[in-house]
């Protein structure tokens, strides 16, 4: 368990980064979190889900662009198709908010 690895006494909050292509439903995750964490060191902690959009690289604009339409993997500015995904599959624990012993 990460929290004990870092010497946490209590975990208040877990921040998760979830990309639009990660295949994770935020509502389902929030719904099961309390049940899944009961009787663990995470019991009573809050799950914060940070949803991030898909970002693709447009070879014509030579820039990363945010995708707003998941049914259309094209540059939103110049409409060039792109398969170069730079962000969107993320499923990452960003940080945890913990209590720890004061260092002496």
């Amino acid at each position, binding site marked *: 368990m990460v929290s004990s690895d870092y010497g946490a006494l209590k975990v208040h909050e877990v921040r998760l980064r979830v990309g639009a292509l990660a295949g994770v439903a935020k509502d389902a995750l929030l719904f099961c979190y309390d049940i899944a964490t009961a009787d663990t060191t995470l019991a009573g902690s809050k799950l914060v889900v940070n949803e991030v959009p898909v970002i693709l690289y447009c070879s014509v604009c030579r820039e990363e662009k945010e995708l707003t339409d998941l049914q259309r*993997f094209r540059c939103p500015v110049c409409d060039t198709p792109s398969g170069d995904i730079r962000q969107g599959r993320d*499923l990452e624990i960003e*940080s945890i*908010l913990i209590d720890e*012993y004061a260092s002496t």
Partner: protein
Amino acid sequence: MNTRVLEIRKGVLNKNDELAATLRERFTAAGVIAFNLVSSPGTGKTAFLEKTLRAMREAGLRVAALVGDLETDNDARRLASSGAPVRQINTHRCCHLEAAMIAEHLEGWDLNELDYLFIENVGNLVCPSSYDLGEKLRIAMLSVTEGEDKPLKYPGMFNSADIAVITKMDLAEACDFDRAAAHANIEAVRPGMRIFEVSAKRGMGMAQWIDWLVQLRASADNQRSHLR
């Protein structure tokens, strides 16, 4: 006592990704091309694979398969009739295959004796997209009976794939299958993806598919010899 924010920056699926990377190295070292076949239940993954294995065996190619299902070994028995080495992975309650299951079920197989490995995933177009199995190519399949807009409904899966295969082409006319729309929808979510159209039952398109597999092997061998 202090309260503080601790940066973690660790992927939830880190462990799977690490195992998959190890598998990919093993496949590459042994010269095995691994494929991960994904689709809805009922698209015809097993029928397609059965004909693929049979044709490849007849052509003298060294091929094996792992097949995932929640329960039963029906699919493994069907595929084994091709004569190729086949193992069933029963996931029980799990809706997708994971890299650890692949590693476990490869035990005892000499990868050096193989040129191709097909991994048939559990029928599901959502969760398997997040689990890397160490494959070289992911094949997303879609049958003409499912509707041309499937890629738009499951962009995460189709976008994660390298190859698309449209199955049951013998039923295309009966289903009023709009071929152009299906191709456009695949192109929309995964620009430039190669598309095969097949009927495993009638054999349509299977020769082109097998030819492509043979060429893939040849170009992989060329690359390997250049690297040496």
